[in-house]
């Protein structure tokens, strides 16, 4: 019974963390361009001595 006092808040906290992370990424526009994000890893940075 004592274990529950720790485990349940931890479980709920982790769940909330996930929910918070999802909301954050939604607001940041992380889901705006899903196909593009997959391709951007191939884009080389320009080495320009600006």
């Amino acid at each position, binding site marked *: 019974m004592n274990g529950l006092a720790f485990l*349940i808040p931890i*479980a*709920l906290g982790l769940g909330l963390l996930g929910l918070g992370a999802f909301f954050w990424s*939604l607001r940041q526009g992380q889901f705006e361009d899903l196909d*593009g994000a997959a*391709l951007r*890893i*191939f*884009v*080389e940075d320009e080495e320009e001595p600006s």
Partner: protein
Amino acid sequence: MTAAALVERDFAVPDIRCASCIAKLEQGLVRDRRIAAARVNFTEKRVHLSCIPGAEMPDLIGAFTNLGFEAHPIGTGPEEADRAAETSRDLLRAVAVAGFAMMNIMLLSVSVWSGATGATRDLFHWLSALIALPTVAYAGRPFFRSAWRALRHGRTNMDVPISIGVLLVSVMSLYETMTHGAHAYFDGAVMLLFFLLCGRWLDSVMRDRARGGVTALLRNMGTGAMVVEGDGRTRWVDATALEPGMVMLVAAGERLAADGLVIGGATRLDLSLLTGESAPRDVQADDPVHAGTLNLDAPLRVRVTAAGADTAIADIARLMGEAAQGKSRYVRIADRAARLYAPAVHCLALAAFAGWMIAGAGWHHSLLIAAAVLIITCPCALGLAVPAAQIVAAGELMRKGVLIKDGSALERLAEVDLALLDKTGTLTLGRPEALDLDGLDDGKKSLVLALAQASRHPLSEALTRGLQCANILPAAVTGIRETPGFGVEAQWADRVVTLGRPQGGEKGDALATELAVDGKPVASIRFADQLRPDARAVTAALRTEGIDAMILSGDRADAVAPVARELGLTAQTGMSPQDKLAAIERQEAAGHKVLMLGDGLNDGPALAAGHASMAPGSASDVGKNAADCIFLGDRLMPVVETIRMARRTQAIVKQNFLLAIGYNVIAVPLAFLGLVTPLVAAIAMSGSSLIVVGNALRLKRAPG
């Protein structure tokens, strides 16, 4: 760099295909000093630019052209799209919250089901309540709002029993928790919300995706024009800012942005989008010209007489508004089901309550059973039955190059039994194609290609397209020069070659071009609008699907007759937009469900009036906006494939309803007898939802 506010502009760039396109665009565009930042959205094939205020539209489009991309400005009227996207995001948030709550409550419930008693059970119930009540308040809003709207108008819809059920169950469960009861249905209430929200969200995502696809397709034809100022200088003016009295300079290959009178130059205009007529019309000084027509030959000066909402297009827009009213009367299958279902659910719950009260079970027990009946009878399966099937179908169709605007379009497409087809641009490709390229030898072909690919004239583009498909390599020519209205000229091994208007004039009104070496004509190529390659097969396939077809064309009878003969269809010709509208109304009055296929501005009202409508990707913006779905590419077969898919989707939807009803036949008596514990409700709900979604996924790997 000054701190002047940057202007944000969006461009549709259909040719973004790979990672190197992203790199090329983002890194190449910022080298233009007018552009401060560029960001590619690959999914929507868009580029967002931040540019300095003085940057003119043609310069920006030129920056894309320099990089080898075709860009179309996207107008600044997407407020409606923004609102729709916001609804989607709201729903997604609600789904996330409900999902989170459902998982946690379910975990707590599992321990209750596995035998927790006494203080532990109460603690778990209280925790569940703590999670469930805010969730119901937040995630339930879409249902409460819709239910309230319906009730206020004295109607009832599917959301009414859902809302009553969820609220009643929550309150009852809270009461149970406070009185140390054995059963709390928090998990059931939240699960119901979660599955129903999934259905709503799928529906909304589908509409968004199609809308995104359509916006990317809209060419925003003639979103502006080069206007000649009093001092002879020219500047770019947006179509919305054009005013009567301005003088526009319209280059060959451009579309007119406003109605006007020709004051300088002579050319031929392609009216096919406006009237459906396939032969170009000669215009010269003092002739009236209309917005949306394509300048074929030479630059033209036009004094604007009407712009914006006053153009001839506005008439068509008014007709469309009237025509679309009929379509808004269509009731979606889910709503039709709800009309029968909602009262039944209410009666059942009421009967259960009354029955147990009479049997002397006490108001508390009776109310609990009534709540169980409510929650078991508005199953998630019913909320998912339609959207799950429709989104799978829409995804499949999108892969085949068909964009469906919303779910109701699929339902209406499944019902059509008569297809009315426009000719120009729908049965035909709607652009000139070179007819007798095979008559040329390879040397001439490579010369023609070398000259044609230097020009943006529609005929040159047709030649380039045709010859590149035949794997011809261009001849080596130098000093290419284009004279608007006449043609292209170049040096080819000490000789002068030209490609342009035939010197002896044209025979009839067929378009033609001529290749000449040192001024002597050596070959002439004729052009005509060709039938789509599979038009014949499509009319046959429509017939096997039990759909009659007819041609409705704005073109002259002698231009339509060959097409009608070739396809074996009856045709009505010379029809105005009003005539087409009247023809559709006649057929609908005769009991037919009409599928309208068309592309032009003149088809707009007809597309809006048809029971369902489709337009090719090459259609006018008006056509694309009015149509229920859009197919890309030169083939016409997607029309038939879409109808088949719509019919299969409808069959799946009906199966899903049957499944949901079958489930009710088993579950409702149990709920009536008071045997539905939270565990039974959880299993029944998730089980039926999975079955319905699984059934919908069958659409994915179907033949066809």
